[in-house]
């Protein structure tokens, strides 16, 4: 069966510090991978998605970046965090195709102080 791992679960970082969140998927190959952010009391905003190694599409301009160094690994990064980067970050994977259903990781609660 497929599983998705996301860590850390919580993170408190000072403004201006770097960020690295990691997500890995097991039990499937060539998944579509996604990073979403959920601000407090808000819906989910798609940040990045990837259909293959090294292929990253960005949905919104921001100071975050994503990378996919391996087929089942997706990393969300920032060189300098802003207060507005605080939120709940969710990684998700899907099999692609026209009926794609997403499976979400457990999320990372990021607080930038």
């Amino acid at each position, binding site marked *: 069966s497929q599983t998705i791992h996301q860590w850390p679960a919580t993170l408190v970082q000072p403004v201006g510090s770097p960020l690295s969140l990691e997500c890995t998927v097991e039990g499937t190959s060539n998944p579509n991978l996604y990073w979403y952010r959920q601000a407090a009391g808000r819906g*989910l905003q798609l940040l990045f998605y990837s259909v293959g190694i090294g292929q990253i599409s960005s*949905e919104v301009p921001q100071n975050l970046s994503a990378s996919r160094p391996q087929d089942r690994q997706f990393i969300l990064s920032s060189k300098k965090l802003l207060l507005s980067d605080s939120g709940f970050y969710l990684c998700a994977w899907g099999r692609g195709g026209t009926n794609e259903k997403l499976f979400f990781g457990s999320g990372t609660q990021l607080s930038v102080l």
Partner: protein
Amino acid sequence: ELKVEQNPLFLSMQEGKNYTIYCNYSTTSDRLYWYRQDPGKSLESLFVLLSNGAVKQEGRLMASLDTKARLSTLHITAAVHDLSATYFCAVDAREYGNKLVFGAGTILRVKS
């Protein structure tokens, strides 16, 4: 710009009552998803609706899709406390590369 609008955004209801959550979207799509999120937790898939007129039921929840009206509903029957959570609809938008665009979510609180 694709818009996915849910209403209500907050719903407080008594146990045993029925209610409906609505999800309107602004694109042509025949694929819509409902997810549940418990506080501080990740999202759990509830329903996948893949065609006009699709209806799916699981326990006290029933979801339907009307692609002509660009509307999906999530109906709650005889609510119980365990249904308290945030419910999201998400639309599979072709012009956005078949990526999911989420509504803002409906916070449901079922009171004993």
